[in-house]
């Protein structure tokens, strides 16, 4: 029996070798097949998205449609003890290099190294940051970490702590690299500024190192020998102070930790775009960071930065103007940080449409010509697609007139860009045809409810202040629609883009009178940041009262009728929007067309068991939620975003595999809790593994690693 094992490794190795020759360029960190560097050819997943182009694609086929159902648990890592309390929201994607898995985990955001074959613990590193971590805007374990090597045995793990420190560790033993920064640490809060009125004059001053609001849940981007670090602030929708830290992106030398460049996402006086912050609003406004993953094209020497919304997401009365580079995709030079091009995809954003997932760098053939393009997934269902060298839209993207806000002081943009191709991967407005229609009664009730809202057939319906006639405005894209931090994926061999997307995040967007009084310009002559609020630094300070903005979920009530939400009243807890509630969508990027779209996730219990639908045959609805996919040679692999108690199995969630060509579900394995972090896959000693983070509700977080049984591998390879 020793022979089959050898044969088993041969086929995938051959496949990968071919891929390496055709797909990979040398000196590309994380992709090169050069000796000493990690590569997909070696089965290694060496950066958050598998490569720095954002693909989440691995050319493996050992786990395929014929055997996915046979997957078994190889090992797992429960993360409860990796921090002062258990975590329920593990969003990490591990890396696998040279037989070791590296990941962040636990409420301390510890770094963990495991034997990738057995799960045995190699080392753990954690930094206790005390109050600085307690005050941090982006807490918990984060999305993961990054890897760098010089190819000669110097291997380093790089991550950003909860308290916004860039840390470098020796990959072999978890010890800080002494000559990187100060003892392995660069304090990222140093150099971050915010606007402050000093003796009647606006100045940009250093944020306080403990209370100053900045951090990130994302991974630093390692591009060649450069580390690029993003910045994020707290959730912006309900923020009631006009000031905040100004978003920025910085690059550091991977060996020394010395800063190479900084790119201010809000251009200062004299810089390109500064005039787009009207009435002096640049002085006080903040946010406008880059909170999600970035991508880089080493050949072109460009880094792609997806921009956040400016301070106070849903109200722009304190920041008139388009506000560059908010909600913009910016390409900057990797060596200098100088802007090469930018495209603002939402002008003067008031919908929280900041750019949520890594830009995807795709090489495709359009109209017979090879093209290097970048696709930016969004919450509003569009994949904004540009030539990644010139920044020109690949397909026409006309500016079209959009509805205007009637909120006092708000100067909404008269137009917004509308991509003509590819088609949306998820709904971005509530079309009349998409209103619930399980029964005529339900539809009539829903339409009656909708009469109380500003409801228009466009993704750009502004927020409203409620009055006798209008309770809110109907939005679908919004904070939780479409794609979020898990991002999307791309198969470079076929030119097909794949994504999971939330297709049903309907809300009635409202700025309440109380909230509006707090944020309106007349009441903010002094413009302060949250940490300047009276009593902020004292123990017992409560987060600002958030009784303002009200956007009751219309995703269906958990119990008897959707609660007091007037949007879903009388719908018996059912969503106001028709299924599918969540989808997997495939777009052919060679043509900019829809290849397929299927519902993702079992029908939620609340729908399947609804007394209003008794006796009806409801096709699989999919589930609301945001989860990321991983691609192999032939499969799209992704877990359910929700728990269900489907009749044919125990309560839990499924990890599913879809055929990349047809969208047909070809296999599924059971998990004790929904997917909470993007899955990844790696190959080690001839065996393919899939690792996925799960948890939520009362299920504490864990990583689960799946592989085919050894017996199954022998059968497959002997055949």
């Amino acid at each position, binding site marked *: 029996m020793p022979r089959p094992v050898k044969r088993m490794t041969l086929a995938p190795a051959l496949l990968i070798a071919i891929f390496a020759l055709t797909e990979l360029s040398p000196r590309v960190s994380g992709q090169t097949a050069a000796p000493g560097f990690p590569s997909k050819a070696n089965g290694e997943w060496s950066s958050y998205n598998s490569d720095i182009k954002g693909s989440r694609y691995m050319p493996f086929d050992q786990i395929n449609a014929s055997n996915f159902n046979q997957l078994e648990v190889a090992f797992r890592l429960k993360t409860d003890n990796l921090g002062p309390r258990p975590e329920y929201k593990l969003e990490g994607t591990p890396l696998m290099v040279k037989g070791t898995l590296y990941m962040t985990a636990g409420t301390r955001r510890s770094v963990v190294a495991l034997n990738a074959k057995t799960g045995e613990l190699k080392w753990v590193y954690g930094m206790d940051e005390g109050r600085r971590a307690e005050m941090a805007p982006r807490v918990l374990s984060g999305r993961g970490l990054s890897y760098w090597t010089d190819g000669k045995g110097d291997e380093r793990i790089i991550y950003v702590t909860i308290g916004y420190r860039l840390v470098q560790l020796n990959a072999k033993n978890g010890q800080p690299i002494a000559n990187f920064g100060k003892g392995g640490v660069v304090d990222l809060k140093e150099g971050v500024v915010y606007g402050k009125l000093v003796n009647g004059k606006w100045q940009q001053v250093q944020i306080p190192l403990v209370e100053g609001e900045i951090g990130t849940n994302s991974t630093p981007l390692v591009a060649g020998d450069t580390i690029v670090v993003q910045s994020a602030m707290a959730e912006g929708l309900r923020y009631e102070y006009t000031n905040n830290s100004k978003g920025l992106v910085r690059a550091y030398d991977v060996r020394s930790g010395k800063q190479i460049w900084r790119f201010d996402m809000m251009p200062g006086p004299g810089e390109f775009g500064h005039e787009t912050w009207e009435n002096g609003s640049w002085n006080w406004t903040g946010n406008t960071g880059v909170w999600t993953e970035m991508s880089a094209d080493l050949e072109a020497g460009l880094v792609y930065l997806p921009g956040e919304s400016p301070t106070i997401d849903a109200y722009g009365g304190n920041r008139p103007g388009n506000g560059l580079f908010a909600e913009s995709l910016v390409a900057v030079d990797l060596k200098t940080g100088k802007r090469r091009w930018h495209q603002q995809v939402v002008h003067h954003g008031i919908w929280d449409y900041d750019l949520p997932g890594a830009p995807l760098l795709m090489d495709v053939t359009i109209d017979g010509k090879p093209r290097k393009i970048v696709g930016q997934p969004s919450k509003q269902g569009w994949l904004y697609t540009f030539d990644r060298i010139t920044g020109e839209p690949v397909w026409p993207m006309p500016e079209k007139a959009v509805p205007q806000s009637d909120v006092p002081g708000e100067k909404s943009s008269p137009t917004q860009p509308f991509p003509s191709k590819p088609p949306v991967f998820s709904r971005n407005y509530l079309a009349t045809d998409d209103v619930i229609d399980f029964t005529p009664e339900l539809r009539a009730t829903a339409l009656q409810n909708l009469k109380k809202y500003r409801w228009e057939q466009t993704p750009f319906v502004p927020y409203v202040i409620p009055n006798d006639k209008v309770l809110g405005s109907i939005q679908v894209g919004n904070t939780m629609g479409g794609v979020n931090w898990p991002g999307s994926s791309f198969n470079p061999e076929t030119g097909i883009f794949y994504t999971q997307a939330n297709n049903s995040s309907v809300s009635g967007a409202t700025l309440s009178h109380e909230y509006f009084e707090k944020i309106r310009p007349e009441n903010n002559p002094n413009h302060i940041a949250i940490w300047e609020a009276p009593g902020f630094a004292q123990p017992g300070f409560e987060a600002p009262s958030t*009784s303002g903005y009200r956007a009751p979920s219309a995703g269906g009530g958990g119990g008897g009728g959707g609660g007091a939400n007037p949007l879903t009243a009388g719908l018996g807890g059912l969503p106001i929007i028709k299924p599918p509630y969540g989808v997997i969508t495939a777009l052919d990027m060679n043509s900019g067309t829809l290849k397929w779209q299927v519902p993702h996730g079992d029908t*939620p219990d609340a729908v399947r068991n609804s007394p209003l639908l008794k006796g009806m045959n409801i096709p699989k609805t999919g589930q609301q939620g945001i989860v990321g996919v991983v691609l192999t040679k032939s499969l799209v692999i992704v877990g359910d975003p929700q728990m269900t*108690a489907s009749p044919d199995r125990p309560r839990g969630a499924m990890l599913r595999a879809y055929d990349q060509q047809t969208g047909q579900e070809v296999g599924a394995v059971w998990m004790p809790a929904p997917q909470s972090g993007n899955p990844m896959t790696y190959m080690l000693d001839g065996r393919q593994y899939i690792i996925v983070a799960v948890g939520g509700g009362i299920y504490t977080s864990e990583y689960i690693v799946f592989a085919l049984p050894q017996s199954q591998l022998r059968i497959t390879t002997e055949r």
Partner: protein
Amino acid sequence: MTTRERTVVLFVALGAAGIFSAALRAQAPRTVWDGVYTEEQAKRGAVLFDKECAQCHGPSGAGGSMAPALTGQAFSANYDGNSVGDLFDRNRTTMPPGKEGQIEAPDNAAITAFMLQANAFPAGETELPSQSMMLKSIKYLAEKP
């Protein structure tokens, strides 16, 4: 037996029956559909929720991009078949991040009551207790039994 004595006996009997039926009620498993919190308690919880939770979880628990919704299908599916004690304990031991365990038990019970209300479970005559062991006996059922 005088009329008065008869009345006393009747009262005693009625009282015993009342106690008996209360005991029966106590033995029957309660669920979130049995009016396990009061309107007043949920109102207090709403104010606390706004201060302590809504910054991340959104108003009325609608959810944000960092923190999940605390109403709706996905939330209820997480707790379906578990207990109100599990929900209470989750709040008590892990929320809000950075202030775990610092919210007083009666306040935590009020927040939990508000969350039940936000998920459209009916209010009743008695307040939700603030001891997790007692709350373990109240079953969280997403669908009305």
